[in-house]
């Protein structure tokens, strides 16, 4: 299905000009996670140009991108591809059907912990991630290993001026819907 102003929408949100992509493959050739993608980065950009909104926003590619910025660094047309992918992620969440739920669960749990304390709390992150993703057994073996090495603390660290953090999150609005 073709969505007429998808390209315009992506350009507007990302501040990039996706139509400049002339399919040189450089992004895909340098991409370290291309083996785990359903569409390669250059294909994804072509699909944005062609207005294939549903396929793009339901793709795994936009979530398994590791945000390593290799594509952005190498693009001969100076398209910030990593930023375009960030934009696509945000649009996919708004649409409500991200293809990689555990990855989204991790990011939401991370930001929720920061919203509460101003700093990340690893216990809270793990607990909320497990509840959101229902992957209860993930990385359980690491907890005693890290505890033994004094890398996890029970004490909650936080900032003193919590109101400033609250203000930032209030202004940011839609990130948790």
């Amino acid at each position, binding site marked *: 299905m073709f969505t007429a102003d998808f390209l315009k929408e992506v350009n507007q949100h990302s501040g990039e000009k996706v139509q400049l992509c002339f399919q040189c493959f450089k992004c895909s050739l340098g991409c370290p996670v291309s083996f785990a993608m359903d569409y390669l980065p250059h294909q994804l950009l072509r699909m944005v140009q062609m207005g294939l909104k549903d396929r793009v926003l339901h793709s795994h590619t936009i979530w398994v991108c590791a945000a390593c910025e290799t594509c952005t660094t190498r693009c001969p047309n100076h398209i910030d591809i990593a930023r375009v992918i960030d934009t696509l992620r945000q649009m996919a969440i708004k649409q409500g059907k991200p293809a990689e739920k555990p990855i989204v669960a991790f*990011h939401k749990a991370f930001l929720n912990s920061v919203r509460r304390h101003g700093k990340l709390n690893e216990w809270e992150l793990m607990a909320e991630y497990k509840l959101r993703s229902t992957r209860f057994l993930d990385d359980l073996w690491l907890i005693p290993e890290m505890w033994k090495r004094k890398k996890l603390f029970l004490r909650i660290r936080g900032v003193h001026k919590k109101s400033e953090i609250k203000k930032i999150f209030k202004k940011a609005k839609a990130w948790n819907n």
Partner: protein
Amino acid sequence: MEQLGYYPGCTLETTGREFDMTTRITCQQLGIELVEIPDWNCCGASSAHELNNYLAISLAARNLAIAEQKLALDVVIPCAACFNRLKVAQKALLNKAYSEFVFEGRTKVYDLLRFLAQPRYKKRLKHQVGKSLKGLKAVAYYGCLLTRPPEVTDHPHPENPTEMDEILKILGVDCLFWSYKTDCCGASLTVGRVDVVHQLVKKLYDHALEVGAECIVTACPLCHANLDLRQKEINEKFNKNYYLPIFYFTELMVLAMDINDTEVWARGHLVDPIPLLKEKGLC
């Protein structure tokens, strides 16, 4: 002592504790007094920019505004992810976006590695080396966010950074050439898609071993965690027997400065580096 603002970031208080500890010792030895940014908050790291643009900038921007107003010092950041986020925020603030944070650009942002690789510190380092790490074969691993994208990091050689190699050579380390120094380890996927991480990290191990390295040296707490914590799983999954200790470059600096607390920082590693260091006669 010259003063410098310090942003440790959340990881350096927990999983990256050894990095924080050895950074503080290293800087003190080189005549730098680190002053922590008062009441700093999490920069949002790999999560904020994926979900919300405003959060991604403003969480980092608050720290910069505090650093400039309260400390009036330049800021050094050991964590590559934090460094990248604060640089992005710095550039956004200089473009006069996000006017709620007062920042005029007097405060400069450095990553610890490139800061210490400046000629004056390398010179001081040469005088501090009390125990040469000669014979220790290592590859320097930079990862993604210290150098990329250069529009953000201002790195002159994003495809072939050499700062860590230079520092390691001063320490006497036999620093080997390899082509994977800036290949991503997949840290942002380490919880959601650990299968992808296993493949990326295994590739790094393989190529490090291929050139004859006995250990990998990192400059990022996320790279370190990924390469150190996952080694046991990767051995089990691929039926391998990798033994590659993962060091922070600051740990090796402290070791070469002959400061006797190797046991303290080494205890934090899952892949115990002591057997390797003993074999080399370094502890």
